[in-house]
């Protein structure tokens, strides 16, 4: 990664106050709490966690689509260097050209009353990236071809398309303004397996072709394992582990990562014995437990875990974890 980090997140907090309280502070949902991570340029960076872990909020706050309470998000490419929290209006407009989002549900993301051509062309028109209709059409056609949509598709409305085709339309729309950074939020979760593979392969080939950096958000570790080169694991608004994919899957340090990995149902009917079962469920972010957020479900929890919050530590090259006892648990 000689060309540095495209996104640098430092001590990011996203807190949502709940209503107003007559006395004292209103309760606060800590959706993201003190998260730091670097996304290297050209990487396919995976973000995994269960529902309520804050992975979507993190993706959105990097795009400045969720409010940043404190901390820094920096975006740096060849031309610009932005402090995302403090973008002014014209900078934000420019940032939107550089950073885009692909949504989860291809049925909800596309307007039913616009043709596919108009859907893909809209970002170009809104951002004023093209000067004539002819130029717009050219860009749309070029992008549609890259996403394996044919010309005849462009005249139709979204209802005529299957889930996989709709997701290709969403991808074309996100990429038509030639962004550098893409947040793909559960972009294959709504698709059938046989289609999912096709979209994953498409994203990978577009990444190479267009020199993109991805933040790929998913709850599915096996999908992450196949497409991402780096993985960060979140739990209750915190980063618990971050490592190059191979390393994380070969040698998970955090007890939560270990449990997540072993909870994936294996295709081998005889391979059920040694899985680590987590008790209970993810606590409410309104009342997160003190100390290590995971101690209520951790089978190794000790007294120290209940009071002292572990910091994210680099234990190996690029492999970070936030567990007091990571060394002992991994047997190192």
């Amino acid at each position: 990664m000689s060309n540095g980090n495209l996104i640098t997140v430092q001590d990011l907090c996203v807190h949502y106050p709940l209503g107003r309280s007559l006395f004292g502070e209103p309760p606060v949902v800590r959706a993201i709490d003190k998260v730091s991570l670097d996304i290297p340029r050209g990487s396919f960076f995976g973000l995994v966690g269960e529902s309520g872990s804050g992975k979507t909020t993190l993706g959105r706050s990097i795009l400045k689509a969720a409010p940043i309470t404190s901390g820094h998000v920096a975006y740096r490419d060849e031309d610009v260097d932005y402090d995302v929290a403090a973008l002014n209006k014209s900078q934000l407009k420019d940032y939107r050209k550089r950073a885009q989002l692909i949504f989860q549900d291809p049925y909800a993301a596309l307007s039913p009353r616009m043709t596919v051509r108009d859907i893909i062309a809209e970002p170009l028109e809104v951002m004023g990236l093209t000067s004539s209709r002819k130029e717009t059409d050219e860009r749309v056609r070029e992008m549609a071809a890259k996403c394996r949509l044919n010309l005849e598709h462009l005249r139709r409305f979204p209802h005529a398309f299957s889930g996989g085709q709709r997701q290709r339309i969403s991808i074309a729309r996100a990429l038509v303004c030639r962004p550098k950074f893409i947040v793909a939020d559960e972009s294959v979760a709504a698709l059938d397996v046989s289609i999912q593979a096709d979209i994953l392969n498409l994203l990978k080939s577009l990444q190479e072709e267009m020199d993109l950096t991805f933040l790929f958000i998913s709850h599915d570790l096996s999908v992450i394992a196949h497409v991402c080169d780096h993985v960060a694991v979140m739990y209750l608004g915190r980063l618990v582990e971050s490592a190059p994919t191979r390393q994380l899957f070969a040698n998970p340090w955090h007890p939560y990562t270990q449990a997540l990995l072993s909870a994936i149902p294996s295709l081998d009917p005889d391979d059920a014995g040694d899985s680590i079962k987590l008790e209970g469920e993810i606590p409410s972010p309104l009342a997160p437990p003190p100390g290590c957020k995971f101690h209520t479900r951790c089978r190794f929890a000790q007294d120290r875990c209940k009071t002292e919050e572990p910091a994210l530590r680099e234990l190996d090259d690029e492999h970070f974890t936030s567990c007091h006892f990571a060394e002992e648990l991994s047997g190192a």
Partner: protein
Amino acid sequence: MTEPLISVRDLTVRFKSDEGLVTAVDGVSFDIAPGEILGLVGESGSGKSVTAKALMQLNGDNAIYDESGSITLNTGEETVDVLSLKRPKDMMVIRGGAVSMIFQEPMASFAPAITIGDQMVEQLQIHSSISKKRAEEISVEMLDRVGISDPSKRLKQYAFEFSGGMRQRAMIAMALSTKPKLLIADEPTTALDVTIQAQVIDLMRDLVSEFGMAILFITHDLGVIAQTADRVAVMYLGNLVETGAVRQVIGEPAHPYTNGLLNALPRLDDLDAPLVAVPGDIPSPLDRPTGCVFNTRCSQVIAGTCEREIPTATQLRDDHVCYCFAVAAGQDGQKAL
């Protein structure tokens, strides 16, 4: 061999719609033995939910069942011809009596304005003549059995006060409290996180050995099937394409579609394996291909045959059955050698 608990023969379900008759399930046959878990796998639109709902006659009024098809339920005490049931009173045996169902989205399955306890008690009282007090006791016992702590307090709560995993547990407790012979589980873990999914799968496995009931487990996740089912049936566009013991179907898949599904699945044991998508999209049920329904996406299509004729069953090993011309041709070839 013991008498099957439920026997589905040549089940065909069509729906009346504005655009004409839509065939959702086409000539599906399978048996479930008492105490057996049959996994029904398929992608969206494959007809797996319609098949399951047919067992309880839960498909809408616009559903048409072909005369030739039959569903026979053998509870041990009586034999019921499910499709001939007409009166709601007669249907009680398949709706919560001998057959129970749990759904994908537990929030949508509980009434939001009635406590969990009242809902559990109500259905117990409908299906048996026990007192309200006894029904409450049974409900508390069941909630405790599925691992909900402080069940007597939970009984007085509403569905929104439960978390997703707990709702699904309560759903299972409710479905099992009438001691059904067959539980239909329609994507019971799809809406849950993996760690909760693992808990629910464990719970269902325990309950099967404890209560000795059979389960029809519907899912699109082959991993979940591998971990729960004894036998598996793979559906595509309303047709059964392959059935057999779970080890055989997943270990030695025969049908090109089953193969395609497995190749498209990201596997943790081999991160370098490329993901191979099944080419094309599932055709619309309004526009079902002629011949073998999979011929438009199949890599082993035999020109002149697959798009014209409907494949029949090819027996592989034991009760491993596959509906495919290419597989049948391969079998014949082996026999000739």
